[in-house]
Each structure stands twice: as structure tokens, then as C-alpha cells.
């Protein structure tokens, strides 16, 4: 239970329209990730769904019920904020109990739900502490606990991991993913990190300047980017985009080739000088300059490749994995 439909939704702040008319459906039980560079309107879109901002026009439906003018609390959604937004003067237990207290859930039921959530999130030992005494990851879990006990139709996450350090972020990413499998509730997750989007999502919504550039599964976006923006945004390291004479040979304004679809060979068609070679052990990222195609061509080679700064190398692209884009930036 938790299908969310946006129908011709727009949002303007004064004269500036941050979200032009937008249609989107998120299916029940889906893990949808809104991803895009900062200021692309992804957080605003989430806040519109939450009801923290009013739409300028259009309709929002949850399970077929029009909630456009319904108060945030009555939409049956729970939100996890970037700053966690825990109540600092309340213990963890009271923080988690707060939404149930507001909803008038009876005490026995409250205790049962808190116990269950605390067990699921490894918070049992911390229930009587204040948020100020917890680490970042624990605070994050309290915020999630506060959302779970409401048993919402859908969870909304607003960049929940951006305040955590890199190692913790990977761990929490897994935990949220597992939580989704367990609860099978609709989740909408906002992030600017395309790795988070690729690893967690059932459906990725790529946004730029309030416009949906593409909607699809992670691999769909990886293999079939609809335009130059999605091609450049999804994937790490980013796709090599080459325009000019080389592209015209393939009948396109721009061609794109992912670093993993290039090979360092003896007799490849492209030649250049190695700038930086990043040896990660499992992979080697080689940044090649002076090919005359683009400023830098990045190559990803499995394993350790013996190239050094200043070496001259030749590159062979896997032509079957090449993406072609027209002058309007759309895929050909």
C-alpha cells in the first residue's frame, strides 16, 4: 500500500519556477531514488510529496487518494531528514514514541513497537540516552526508528547519509537496503551521490533543473542513457564524451564510451600520453591526455596494468558498447 502518483505537479518560489510540470508514478513497495546535482529540485520534489511545501499546481495522489491539500501528518508518510532532526531534549525512547504519542496510540502498543524497532535497529541499549550522547550512525538509526514505528505508507529519505563518514555510509546503505527488503514499503530516497542511487534503487529518477531527464532501473540507465546528461551523470568514473571529427565518423555529434569499455593495447586507433595512473589493486584507472579527442580520456583496466606517468599508450574502444548522441544531446 503506497503507490505515489504525481500529476502535472509544478512548484514556483515567487517568479522562479523550480519544477516545471512533472508526471511521475512510484509503484507500491518500490525503492525510488531521486538523484541529480545540487539545486536540481530533488529535495523540493520530496518536500512536495511530504506536504512540507505546497504545490503551485497539479495533483499528488497516494494510493489513488488525492492528498494535494492534505496536511503532512495525514498523508501517512514518514520522513528521515538530513540533519536527523531528533528532538534533543527527549531520550531516544521518547523520540521514537513521539509520533505515536501524537497519534494517540495506547501505551502497551507503543512499548511493543519501540521494542521491535529498537531490536531491528540495534538501539536497545541506547533507549534511555539523549541524542547528544549518540554517534552519527546511531542518530541516523533513531531517526529511522522514529519513522518505522508510524508504520507509514511510504518512507521519505532526504540525503540521510550525507552527514556520515565514508565507511559508515556504506554500512548504513546496506542497512537501509535490507530494511526495505524486510518491510517491503515504498521508499523514496533523495541523494546527489550516484553510487548510492545505483546500489540501492529499484528505480532511479534523474533530475536536472526540476526536469526528469530519465526514469529507469540502475542498469537501464547505465546501458541506455537517454541523453548526454544522464550518460555523464551515471557511472563512475564518468563516461568519456568525444565530439568533433571522430564522432562524425560514427555519424553522431557526440560519442560516449565508458572507461571500462576501453582497453590499453599495442595497436589501438587512439594514442595519447598517460597523465595519472591510479592503481587501486583490483582496478587501474588510467587518465590519458593528448589524444586530440577530449582533454582527458579515462580508461578502466581490471587488475594491475604496468603503465606510468608519461608513457605513450594506444587505446582500443569496444565499438559495440559505444553510445551515440545527436546535436540536441539525445541518444541516436
Amino acid at each position: 500500500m503506497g503507490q505515489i502518483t504525481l500529476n502535472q505537479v509544478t512548484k514556483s518560489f515567487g517568479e522562479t519556477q523550480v519544477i516545471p510540470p512533472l508526471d511521475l508514478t512510484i509503484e507500491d513497495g518500490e525503492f525510488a531514488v531521486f538523484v541529480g546535482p545540487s539545486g536540481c529540485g530533488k529535495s523540493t520534489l520530496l518536500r512536495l510529496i511530504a506536504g512540507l511545501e505546497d504545490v503551485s499546481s497539479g495533483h499528488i495522489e497516494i494510493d489513488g487518494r488525492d492528498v494535494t491539500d492534505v496536511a503532512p501528518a495525514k498523508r501517512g508518510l514518514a520522513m528521515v531528514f538530513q540533519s536527523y532532526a531528533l528532538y534533543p531534549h527527549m531520550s531516544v525512547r521518547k523520540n521514537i514514541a513521539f509520533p505515536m504519542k501524537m497519534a494517540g496510540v495506547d501505551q502497551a502498543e507503543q512499548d511493543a513497537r519501540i521494542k521491535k524497532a529498537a531490536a531491528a535497529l540495534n538501539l536497545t541499549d541506547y533507549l534511555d540516552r539523549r541524542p547528544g550522547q549518540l554517534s552519527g550512525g546511531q542518530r541516523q538509526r533513531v531517526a529511522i526508528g522514529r519513522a518505522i514505528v508510524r508504520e507509514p505508507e511510504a518512507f521519505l529519505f532526504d540525503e540521510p547519509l550525507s552527514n556520515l563518514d565514508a565507511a559508515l555510509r556504506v554500512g548504513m546503505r546496506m542497512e537501509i537496503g535490507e530494511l526495505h527488503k524486510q518491510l517491503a514499503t515504498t521508499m523514496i530516497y533523495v541523494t546527489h551521490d550516484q553510487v548510492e542511487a545505483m546500489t540501492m534503487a529499484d528505480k532511479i529518477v534523474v533530475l536536472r533543473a526540476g526536469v526528469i531527464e530519465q526514469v529507469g532501473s540502475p542498469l537501464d540507465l547505465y546501458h541506455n542513457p537517454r541523453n548526454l546528461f544522464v550518460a555523464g551523470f551515471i557511472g563512475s568514473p564518468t563516461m568519456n564524451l568525444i565530439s568533433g571529427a571522430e564522432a562524425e565518423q560514427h555519424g553522431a555529434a557526440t560519442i560516449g564510451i565508458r572507461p571500462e569499455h576501453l582497453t590499453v593495447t599495442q595497436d589501438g586507433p587512439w594514442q595519447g600520453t598517460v597523465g595519472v595512473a591510479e592503481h587501486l589493486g583490483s582496478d587501474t584507472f588510467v587518465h590519458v591526455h593528448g589524444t586530440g579527442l577530449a582533454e582527458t580520456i579515462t580508461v578502466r583496466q581490471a587488475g594491475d596494468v604496468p603503465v606510468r606517468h608519461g608513457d605513450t599508450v594506444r587505446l582500443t574502444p569496444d565499438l559495440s558498447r559505444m553510445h551515440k548522441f545527436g546535436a540536441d544531446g539525445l541518444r541516436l
Partner: protein
Amino acid sequence: MATKASRTAARFMMAPAVTLLLGWMLVPLIMTLYFSFADYRPLRNVFEPWIGFDNYERFVSSSAFWDSVTTTLVMVGSILAITVVLGILIALLLDKPIFGQGIVRILVISPFFVMPTVSALAWKNMMMDPVNGVLSHVWRFFGATPHDWLVETPLLSIILIVSWQWLPFATLILLTAIQSLDGEQLEAAEMDGAPALKRFWYIILPHLGRAITIVILIQTIFLLGIFAEIFVTTQGSFGTRTLTYLVFQRVLESQNVGLGSAGGILAVILANIVAIFLMRIVGKNLDA
């Protein structure tokens, strides 16, 4: 980088200032203590250096003493209640984005810039005067008989005047506290199903706890010594005689320095008792 030498040097250099301040505080206190045990009436040329606790006994046993203690507590308590409650409400309003915000905020703060004597005079002659005061014009406009504020409700009048003076201070401190509240907390509470009043009660008010404590402590310190407002308006008559004013009367009107000094020492002790009580009640807000 505080090395041992620089710390010693710092102590030497600060010594004159500390000594001066210490003397400034100790000399009057010791003199008051000394006079409080003496029968000292300068105009009658009486000076007997040691009469034991006679002054204290006389001061405490007079009916004026307990009345003045009650008056002081009622006055300070009412002013604290008015300034904190109204201060929170005004601060909440000022936190909203409005047209001409800067000017409105300066206007709200302005009573604090007026000297106590001046503001008391202004209130007495321009606002509360039974014939020409603004308030009596308002009363007459609605067809009511003007209220003679300082005669009929003198204690209330002084409470109103002093509250007006201190409201800006409370508002200012509470406003900065409200502005430091994380907006996402309020949004989270809204999502959690708390309507506006409950958000105020469960989120904003606890957040303001520390600021309210500071307002109460600082105001109590200053309010226990209210003098100018009483001197200018009622001269301590009609049940507006606070402990401070009683001490003043004993020393300067009765010319009994010994008795007044004993009262002064009692006032210091009472102020400390009040302070300890306050610290106990609200001080826990200052931890964590």
C-alpha cells in the same frame, strides 16, 4: 601558549584591577556590616559602636519588614511572569518574516534604552494620570470612569511599568533562542503529526528552557533592587514598599544608619536565598 612565566606575569598585571574591584566590593560591605551592629544616628549625634543584634531585632520585628518582603516577592514574581510569557509570544511573532522587520525589532527593543526614572515619570504623568493620561482618555472613550492607577492599584501600576521596561530584554534573548531552533525539527514534528500548539509545547518550549532560565536569573538580580520606579511614583506608600525601599527609608528618612544597615544585610541574605531557590528550580536547565 600559557607558559609558567607568562601566567605569573599575567597574575601580576591583573593584580591591581582585581585588588581595586575587591576593595570596591568589600569596603561598603564591611562598613555596612560594621554599622549594622552600631547605634548610629548622625543627625542626633548618636554613635555607639556595639549594640549587638538590636538593630536586626528592631528591623525584623517591625510590621513593615514582612510586608516589604511580601511586596518584593509579589512584585518580582509578577514581573518575571509577565515578561517571560509576553516575551515568548512577542518573540514568536517577531520570528515570522514581516514587512519592516528591522524597524519593528528596534521599536520593540527601545523601552530598554529609556532610563528607569524617565520611564516611570513618563508612565506616571503621560499614561496613568487620572485626568490627562492616555489610559484615562481610552477609558473615557469607551464611556468608563478613568482609573486612578497609582492611587487605586499602585502595586499593579509599578509592576506594569517595570514589566514594560524589561519586556524588551526578555524578548530579545528569547528571540535569539527561537532563531537558533533547527527548522527541520519543527518539520519533523509536523510530519509526526504534532499540530502547531503541540509543536510549541513539545519542541519550541523545551528548546527555550535555557534562555528562559537566563532571563529569570538576570532579571531577578536586577528586579530585587528596583528603586527609581517606586521613588518617582508612590514613594513607597500604598503597599509598594519593597525591602530595598524600606532600607532607603530607614537610612535617609529616619536618619538611622544602623537600622538601615541591618536591613541591608538582611536584604543581601534574602536575595541569596531567592537566588539559591531559583538555581535549584531552574538551574538544572543550564547543564547539558
